[in-house]
């Protein structure tokens, strides 16, 4: 459905996107994630046709819509967009907002489509209300219904949940996922919050400084990060240094860790190993002791920050009845089924 080929975009001399390639299959939900200023909104705007690439091409549903030489104007792309500030038209009612993109439809068809969407987002009773009278979550749903109305080939959402209160942020993503599934919508959203990305997306692209560092499923990004940045940005965890012994063993201060290593790691090489909190088990019989320096109760788990003898800190996830005090020494044991290692020289 969506295909980006080596797209670069610049604002003056500043490169906002560098050589970005990306594909999204029809019916899937994609998500771009990254720190602010990484170019993820620019990428959406480029796909929508508001920015022109200085290099590369954007293909949409088998048609080339952006290239250096030619750009199809946004109004002819059939790409729906939901902006961060929602951008509801204040002078139009909810129904009129949703119907805005249906000007060329026959009146009966238009009314039917608007009614259908009102039902889909559960706002039938508010059809005649004006945006200022709606709550944040309702406004959000109007904006999404409005973007969906003309049956766009691709629906894009820029930080769709950032203006909502925490409770809605939990609930809306799931609701939207259901709505998108039911309507068979291909969607691409931008966020800097990984829980949102995990909740919605089939495919996630991690962006940094105008490039896509890695893209894939949430599981893959979490367990097989290809760069330090992705390892750091997705999920929690720390790096501990170690020395490669052979192609599947690394010696660290928590003993010898075993698992598959990337090919670049040669015996004798100094590497950093990613330890996720769930890779470190609380085990009183373990020979490795560490002191608790911070603890956070998470309901089902405790997340302990513990200091090793070297002073290095690692995270340890323990079931919640293992209640230990700050300053207490506990036994920990690494348990990894694969290794994520980055050579220190890189």
């Amino acid at each position, binding site marked *: 459905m969506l295909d980006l080929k080596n797209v670069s975009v610049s604002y003056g001399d500043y490169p906002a996107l560098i050589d970005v390639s990306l594909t999204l299959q029809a019916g899937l939900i994609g998500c771009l994630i990254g720190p602010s200023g990484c170019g993820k909104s620019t990428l959406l705007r480029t796909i*929508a046709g508001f920015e022109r690439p200085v290099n590369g091409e954007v293909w949409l549903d088998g048609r080339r819509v952006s290239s250096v030489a030619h750009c199809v104007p946004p*109004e002819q792309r059939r790409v*729906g967009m939901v902006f961060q500030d929602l951008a509801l038209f204040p002078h139009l009612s909810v129904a009129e907002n949703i119907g805005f993109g249906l000007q060329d439809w026959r009146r009966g068809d238009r009314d039917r489509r608007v009614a259908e969407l009102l039902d889909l987002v559960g706002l039938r009773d508010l059809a005649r209300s004006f945006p200022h009278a709606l709550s944040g979550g309702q406004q959000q749903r109007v904006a999404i219904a409005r973007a969906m109305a003309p049956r766009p080939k691709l629906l894009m959402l820029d930080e769709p949940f950032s203006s909502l209160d925490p409770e809605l942020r939990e609930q809306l993503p799931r609701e939207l996922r259901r709505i998108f599934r039911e309507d068979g919508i291909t969607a691409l959203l931008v966020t800097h919050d990984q829980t949102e990305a995990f909740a919605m997306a089939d495919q996630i692209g991690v962006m940094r400084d105008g490039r896509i560092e890695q893209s894939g499923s949430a599981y893959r990004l979490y367990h097989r990060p290809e760069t330090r940045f992705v390892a750091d940005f997705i999920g929690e965890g720390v790096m501990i240094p170690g020395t490669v012994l052979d192609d599947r063993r690394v010696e660290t201060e928590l003993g010898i860790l075993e698992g598959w290593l990337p090919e670049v790691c040669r015996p004798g090489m100094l590497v950093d190993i990613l330890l996720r909190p769930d890779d470190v088990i609380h085990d009183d019989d373990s020979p490795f002791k560490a002191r608790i320096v911070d603890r956070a109760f998470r309901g089902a788990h405790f997340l302990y920050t513990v200091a090793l003898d070297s002073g290095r800190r690692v995270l340890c996830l323990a079931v919640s009845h293992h209640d230990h005090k700050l300053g207490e020494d506990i036994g920990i044991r690494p348990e990894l089924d694969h290794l994520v290692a980055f050579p220190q020289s890189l």
Partner: protein
Amino acid sequence: MLLVAAVLGLPVVTVVVYAFYGADGVWSHLAGTVLPTYVYNSLLLSLGVGAGTLVIGTGTAWLTVMCDFPGRRLMTWLLLLPLSMPAYIIAYTYTGMLDFAGPVQSTLRAWFGWGYGDYFFPEIRSLPGAAVMLTLVLYPYVYLLSRAAFLEQSVCALDVGRTMGLSPWQVFRRIALPLARPAIVTGLSLVLMETLADYGTVKYFGVSTFTTGIFRTWFGMGEPAAAAQLAAVLLGAVVLLILLERWSRRQRQYHHTSGRYQPLSAYRLSLGRGYLALLACVSPVVLGFALPALQLLSWSADTMAEQLGRGFPQLVFHSLLLAALTSILALGLALLLAYGRRLRGTTAVRAAVGTAGLGYAIPGTVIAVGVILPFAWLDNTIDAWARAHLGVSTGLILSGTLVALVFAYLVRFLAVSLQTVESGLAKIAISLDETARSLGANPTRTLRTVHMPIMRGSLLTAVLLVFVDVMKELPATLILRPFDFNTLAVRAFELASDEQLAAAAPSALAIAIAGLAPVILLSRSIARSRPGQGANA
């Protein structure tokens, strides 16, 4: 768009070009004789008006914002009323009231039994008199801007001053004034631009300044080139003012303190002081509006019947026609320029829009000179061509018709509607445009179905402001109007110049009434921004 901006910039370019390639002989003659007088008078006038408006404007603004006294709320908008009076109108009204046969001197003579020459009475038709007149009608600019600045100031900054034991006067002088300085400078530069542009008042009072000089050089001495050179000098002064204003506006961002709006806690004044404050606020309104308006009313009552018979309806029609034509055209152009800039904000477009917006600062006389020179040339060219090829004389199809006049108005007042439209547009988030575009609306439809309905208020304001400005405009109308084409402003000025003060009153009154409309509009928007009431919205 670039074309529009270029055409609108034509008068200014003409004036500058003439200034460099004009007739040198006349210029050196002027420089040796009258130029020093013009410079001296214009400077002195600016100084006087500047000081006067500064004191009255900031003083009343501070009183109405920070002090609690009887009638404060009413004064907030009453203080704007003098804005509706063109300076030349109150100038001749005061002349009528204060001259030897006028009501003031007659009363004094009756009370004290004086006769002619027994006493000293200041001559109103003088440079100080002109300064007072201009001050009385221009101080609202400073009042408006400094008031807005005082309101914007964080309560915290002022309250900190109070907790540190500063007296109200010290808070004003050491905190509020410095914080509001950029806004005050902006107000002051507006005042000075108006002062430099004034023709009616100084002409009527016989004070020789640049504007009257331009008229005399052109029509008295028949030297358009020299007039254009004078205009160029005046233009230089205005450019300086614009730079000053820009500079102070740039400073403004550094002057913003925390953006929290709370109701300002006003100083409670004792009863006596409260009435003093009220008096201080009432006097400029009485002097700048109430007295002249009453005088005009009483004169009008005497002469209305007679004037109505003498083509008065036609004057009204002419004024309304010009005002309506210009304000609608200006709105169209402003929409084109402002929306074009929004769609495609390249440097060239931005510069073009910026130039188009400069016209307001340029005195009407300068614009008139800059319009008539190229138009006359164009007319002669067309005429010569038509004679040579068609054997007919086309005459003056541009410079002698309303085209030239409306064009000059557009050059001068486009800035007003442009600014209003731009600030209206700026309040609409760009994501609304982009949403409409992504929903399949092209830019034109977006403008029509999204922007125009949302900023209907701004569009109305833009039309109204230009409308009234055109009604009041005098010097460009005097120069560019077609032969025998009179407007209210022209008639009022001509009759007054012929010492038929009472006969001029109905026209003057009509202009002042029209001038009330934007003042009411302003006062309504001010009422909405009262401290603590929706200031955040």
